[in-house]
């Protein structure tokens, strides 16, 4: 991969820092009038998700990271690996538990997810922004109580627990925003 100098750092650029792939979030050019120029850079470690603040001398460079986001269909899991398929080529990729861990509570077979590949290997999986899932466990519904506020926890088919309105029942299908974990509505 190419090397990128601080003046090429842009939001979204993927680089390697301390052996880990990182995504650049912000890059600020700082220069005291008579002093050495430097860049204050905010990066997200794509393995751990942690955000780091680093200061580089202007002109320093980092190696680019071979990181690519790709839409893939989730097929199945054998318990050790989670299998995803590229819809165009039918090529399959095995993701480890650490790569899917954040997505696991939302993942249903056939879902189209964004798989982040690092050197061709799945690094992380982002579930669809909205998923529709069946409630498998919740307190009995309070019929007629549709106008009042109030909510109760409900366990969904994939294991996620979300807050839903009181009138919903086991067997109902709900739409959830996976980015916030919030209930969006009932699917009829």
């Amino acid at each position, binding site marked *: 991969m190419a090397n990128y100098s601080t*003046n090429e750092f842009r939001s979204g650029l993927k680089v390697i820092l301390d052996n880990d792939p990182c995504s650049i979030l912000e890059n*600020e*050019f*700082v*220069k*005291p*009038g*008579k*002093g*050495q*120029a*430097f860049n*204050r850079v905010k990066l997200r470690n794509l393995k751990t998700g942690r955000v780091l603040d*680093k*200061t*580089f*001398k*202007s002109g*320093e460079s980092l190696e680019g990271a071979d990181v690519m986001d790709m839409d893939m269909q989730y097929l199945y899991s054998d318990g050790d690996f989670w299998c995803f398929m590229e819809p165009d080529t039918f090529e399959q990729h095995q993701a480890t538990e650490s790569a899917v861990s954040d997505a696991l509570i939302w993942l249903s077979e056939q879902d189209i997810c964004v798989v982040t590949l690092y050197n061709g290997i799945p690094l992380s999986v982002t579930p669809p922004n909205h998923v529709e899932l069946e409630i498998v466990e919740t307190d009995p519904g309070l019929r007629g109580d549709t106008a009042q506020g109030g909510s109760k926890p409900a366990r969904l088919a994939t294991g996620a627990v979300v807050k839903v309105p009181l009138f919903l029942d086991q067997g109902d299908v709900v739409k959830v925003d996976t980015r916030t974990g919030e209930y969006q509505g009932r699917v009829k």
Partner: protein
Amino acid sequence: MSDWQPGASIHNLRRRAQMMSLVRNFFANQSVMEVDVPVLSRSGVTDLNIDGICATLAGAPAYLQTSPEYFMKRLLASGIGDIYCLGKAFRDSEIGHKHNPEFTLLEWYRCGWDEHQLMSELGDLVSQLMNKPGVSDLRVTKVSYADCFQDKFGLNPHQASLSDLQGLAAKAGSSSWAGETRANCLDLIFSLKVEPQLPEGLVFIYDYPECQAALAAITTAEQGYKVSRRFEGFLDGLEIANGYFELCDPIEQRRRFDQDNIARQAAGKPLWDIDTKLLDAMRSGLPACAGVALGLDRLLMSDLEVKSIDQVMPFSWLRC
């Protein structure tokens, strides 16, 4: 946003025009004469951390000036008296929210004054320029470079060992600073740890370290160590001005030029020819004086409370 349009609103450009006219009125009232010195010169600046932009004139290099300083000092040595220049300066690769490679600099010199008298005049000027109806007077604070460090880190920046400073810099920046020079470590620590916590209003930091003297005279402080008679002005935490009680000794000036070029060579930067006309002027006699340069674009950013220099200039480099 369309690229053909100016970055600044018409309102901001009107304020810019007003500020330039206020500057001229201020100096007219003080009987300081305006000079419009060239921006193109046969000599560049040797400063390690300031890179000039080199044009070509009839096949020979011609340097866009990084400040009007050398020309103004040649006028001072000719006996012109107090002068100011309001014009453009150019610095290569300085692009960011607070930097544009071409910018507007107000620089002036007061003969027979020291740097503290000049700070006080700079305070008056900024107060007048920023005088908004209903806003209380500008708060002006003065603190020595040593006290800034002493308060924050409990160490004296002039006497601390290089390894102590490298340790602080590595902690503030990243491990790659552990091998840096004294001047670079001090700049990093100051920018990251001191600057963000400066009080509001106009703050003058004076008595900079000897290794950051640039073109300022050097003196011995009461405590026995050397400091440079250089100061900087920060307005609400934004660096706006840099001034000196000027170095007048041509031999010391020559030594600093040569030292600059040695440092440039070590850093793999191009070497610039030394401005011998400036040295000749200093040999003939530069009067004792204090001088300061103020970034007008930065002052406007603070006055108009905007985050980007693009919002106070007709066309920043992004739009040129």
